[in-house]
């Protein structure tokens, strides 16, 4: 099972940085075969949480990504327009004052696939991400943050008049 949150395992990753790209087979002896390990600086397709991207509900996305549910928090700032000028390019920025954030996920509840983007936040990186997303139609946008192992969320309704999925 893919374990998204890996902050407690940072030390192990540093030690194993020298391993050959994609050579996960060599790591099985260390009991780390299910460990998400980005070799060098290369983006590793194996890390991609395929299952989470297939889910059709907020609860299922969070279960697949983090194995948890989220509670509302007023410490998350979700900056999104009232009315998207065009559903194809909606600028959305999230940030928070929550401590030790290790993951961020942005969900668009009325999109064909609810999970739009997820971000891994290593120690030393701020709880902040700005991106541009497609929205099929008017929908609640949910920003989720994993902080100290717990999930928190904030949401905002964004109106879309011209859908971003080719409508």
């Amino acid at each position: 099972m893919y374990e998204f949150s890996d902050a407690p395992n940072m030390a192990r990753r540093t030690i194993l940085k020298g391993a050959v790209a994609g050579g996960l087979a060599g790591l099985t002896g260390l009991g780390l075969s299910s460990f998400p390990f980005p070799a060098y600086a290369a983006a590793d397709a194996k890390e991609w949480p395929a299952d989470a991207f297939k889910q059709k509900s907020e609860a299922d996305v969070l279960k697949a990504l983090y194995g948890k549910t989220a509670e509302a928090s007023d410490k998350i700032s979700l900056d999104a327009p009232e009315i998207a000028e065009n559903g194809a390019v909606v600028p959305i920025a999230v940030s928070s004052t929550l401590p030790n954030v290790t993951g961020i996920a942005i969900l668009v509840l009325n999109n064909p696939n609810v999970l739009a983007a997820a971000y891994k936040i290593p120690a030393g990186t701020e709880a902040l991400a700005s991106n541009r997303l497609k929205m099929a139609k008017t929908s609640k946008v949910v920003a989720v943050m994993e902080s100290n192992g717990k999930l928190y969320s904030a949401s905002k309704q964004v109106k879309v008049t011209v859908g971003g999925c080719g409508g």
Partner: protein
Amino acid sequence: MLRKCFIAVAIVAGTAQPLLAASGVNPEADRKAFVKYFTEKFPKLKLKDFVNGPYSMDEDLYKQWVAKEEFPPYEFTLEKGKKMLATPFKNGKTYADCFENKGVGIRQNYPKFDPKRGKVITLEVAVNECREANGEKPYNYKKGEMAAITAYMAYTSRGKPMSIKIPDDPRALAAYKKGEEFFYTRRGQFNFACSSCHVQMAGMHLRTEVLAPALGLMNALPVYRSKWGAVGTTSRRLTSCNSQVRATPLKPNDELYRDVEYFLSYMGNGLPISGPGARP
């Protein structure tokens, strides 16, 4: 919603007066009247804000635009345009051989009146004439390549004031006048003139869009539209505007369109070039 607009315009129809100062052709007086109308209609806007159209009129739209301008979606188009401008033709010559200052920082001077031929030359026409003079095929006026090169040329002029000249030549004044008349003439099944939307209803919503004021409209072209996901040429915008009012559009570089561009660009004199503009 569109119905309501239709009716609103029909009511206004009888009172739709062009913003002309006096009889005869006096572009500078027309321009002053144009500016006066818009600055009175939108007292909160600074003159230079007009070039950003709907973004200057709606806070929510403005924030989305500013967020995207940090690293604009048309960045790659600009790179393409820059490369195109520098690439020599098959005969070894380049655009620098046709345009002043190698084609850089000169967009604000277009459209120009060519006294030799007695016609208005827009930037797009100038690009194609340069190509044809050097044995190359002209670009399609509505598509990507023309959009990319004119977007880059506009970008190199960003911030410079629009500087259209109308020489004291009866042919130039006639072209300006024809463009002005086109702008105020109703056409199409919807019976809208350019002025119906961009003068009378400027700042109002038409379906989901905020209608941009005509003042500064040309300063933002060519334009990246989120709707197109790409940069579109001035020709594309003029022809699609006509199609949208269910009028048969003219050919992209038709003399009348050039005259309209001449007139409308002159109205934006002094305001900064903001191209390539971004619009919803």
